[in-house]
């Protein structure tokens, strides 16, 4: 070690003494961890959707998209119906010490139940997803055939640190089911957990209470920030009527009020949008109706006025 090396080592150790104090570190880490946990469900689902989209050949993606509207097509008129009935997740795992009750969401038509592990020594977070189509994966994995619930299934293992990811998927009652967890469980235990799934009806908790919903449309996404709807015959993921709670955005050119909040309604060839500055939630509520639908200004404002933001919401 020469002079420069010694000076450098000395400088680095001197500098370390000026590092921030560790006071409050644990609380800060816990707060950040909690924040990530709250957003994890939505984030995981987004990633899952992105991976699935990447894994599907472009032709299939294109085939699944709603056909572009012919210039002369008649746009479906949105009528408002009273209230909203959220969809329900059709399975559950037996209550287990060390596992929380499931958090259920809907993303692009896929129902997802996340079971969080509180005892991470013997259990691991487990996600069960129900889709209408066969799942597509974008990550290379070892895959083995297994028997699950009396059916043929496949168990995928992605070898990553700190824990290998295990995903079991199979087809049942005309739909595809995935159970994803990590190597806290052995492959046999993963299959056993899938075998333990029982019928249930767990309603997806929406982020908003709706006085009105678009009649004849089905919910496509329900997450802590978003509720979207698609026409009943349209493929999953083709939402045409979307309500999103966003972090506050400057609202310029307000042209009306909605339930006492400044709002701006804009129309262009692609869509009609209503942005509402929800100051008491420090957020912006955006309602977008796609070009394939038509809605009057009065109905759109009436719908917006009937959106009640709930505590469980989380702006994106």
């Amino acid at each position, binding site marked *: 070690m020469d*002079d*420069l090396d010694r000076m450098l080592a*000395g400088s*680095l150790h001197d*500098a*370390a003494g000026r590092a921030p104090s560790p006071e409050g570190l*644990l609380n800060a880490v816990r707060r*950040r*961890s909690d924040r990530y946990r709250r957003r994890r469900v939505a984030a995981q689902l987004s990633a899952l959707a992105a991976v699935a989209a990447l894994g599907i050949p472009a032709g299939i993606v294109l085939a699944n998209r709603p056909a572009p509207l012919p210039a002369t097509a008649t746009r479906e008129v949105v009528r408002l119906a009273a209230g909203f009935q959220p969809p329900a997740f059709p399975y559950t795992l037996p209550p287990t010490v060390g596992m929380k009750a499931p958090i259920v969401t809907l993303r692009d038509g896929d129902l997802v139940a996340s079971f969080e592990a509180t005892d991470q*020594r013997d259990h691991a977070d487990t996600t069960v997803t129900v889709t209408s189509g066969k799942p597509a994966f974008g990550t290379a994995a070892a895959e083995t055939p297994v028997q699950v619930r009396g059916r043929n299934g496949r168990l995928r293992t992605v070898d990553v640190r700190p824990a290998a990811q295990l995903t079991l998927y199979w087809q049942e009652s005309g739909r595809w089911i995935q159970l994803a967890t990590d190597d806290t469980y052995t492959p046999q235990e993963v299959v056993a957990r899938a075998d333990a799934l029982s019928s249930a009806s767990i309603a997806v908790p929406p982020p908003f209470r709706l006085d009105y919903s678009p009649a004849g449309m089905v919910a496509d996404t329900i997450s802590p920030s978003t509720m979207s709807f698609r026409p009943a015959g349209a493929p999953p993921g083709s939402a045409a009527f979307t309500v999103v709670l966003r972090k506050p955005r400057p609202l310029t050119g307000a042209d009306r009020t909605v339930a006492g909040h400044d709002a701006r309604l804009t129309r262009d060839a692609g869509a009609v949008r209503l942005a509402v500055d929800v100051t008491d939630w420090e957020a912006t509520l955006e309602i977008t109706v796609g070009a394939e639908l038509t809605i009057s200004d009065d109905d759109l404002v009436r719908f917006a006025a009937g959106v009640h933001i709930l505590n469980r919401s989380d702006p994106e």
Partner: protein
Amino acid sequence: MPLPRQIPGAPARAPVISDARTGSPDSFDEFVQTRGWALLRFAYVLSGDSYLGEDLVQEVLARMHRRWPKVAAMDSPEAYVRTAIVRQFLSWRRRRSAGESILAEVPEPSAADEPQHHVVVRDQMWRLLAGLPRSQRAVLVLRFYCDLPDDEIAALLNCGESTVRSQASRALAKMRIMLAGKGARGDG
């Protein structure tokens, strides 16, 4: 404040946190409470910025929090955390700064026999470090602060030992030139 040499130390030399390896619910808290300052010092020296250092440590620990039993079961949880901090630092720097920064201005040194000379020289070194590319800075910190051998640095940075040597060599050569230009002398 004089710092014990083993605090930032190499994975194999870091004190074993026995409870952290049990995976008990409290082990994460204990790990943060006992090793938090060492991690903060490491992240500060690595990044050269107290806010970024805090952010690095909080980010890495928050992401590991819920997987802690898995991390604690590893041979050296602290080494794993430190590796994650380095990689997070390199990743953030890549996002935030596309290019190499200009070497910081070095103040004129005081005479070697003045009492504050050592402090001034070490301050010069710190300023020069701030001007190095992130990868070179990381190599120097791992070598001279953590006392890691080149093979362990190479494994941590996921590169070859020759890359570690060349990065260190370039960084030190650059610092020598800058110091020579300013007339600084060592204290050793």
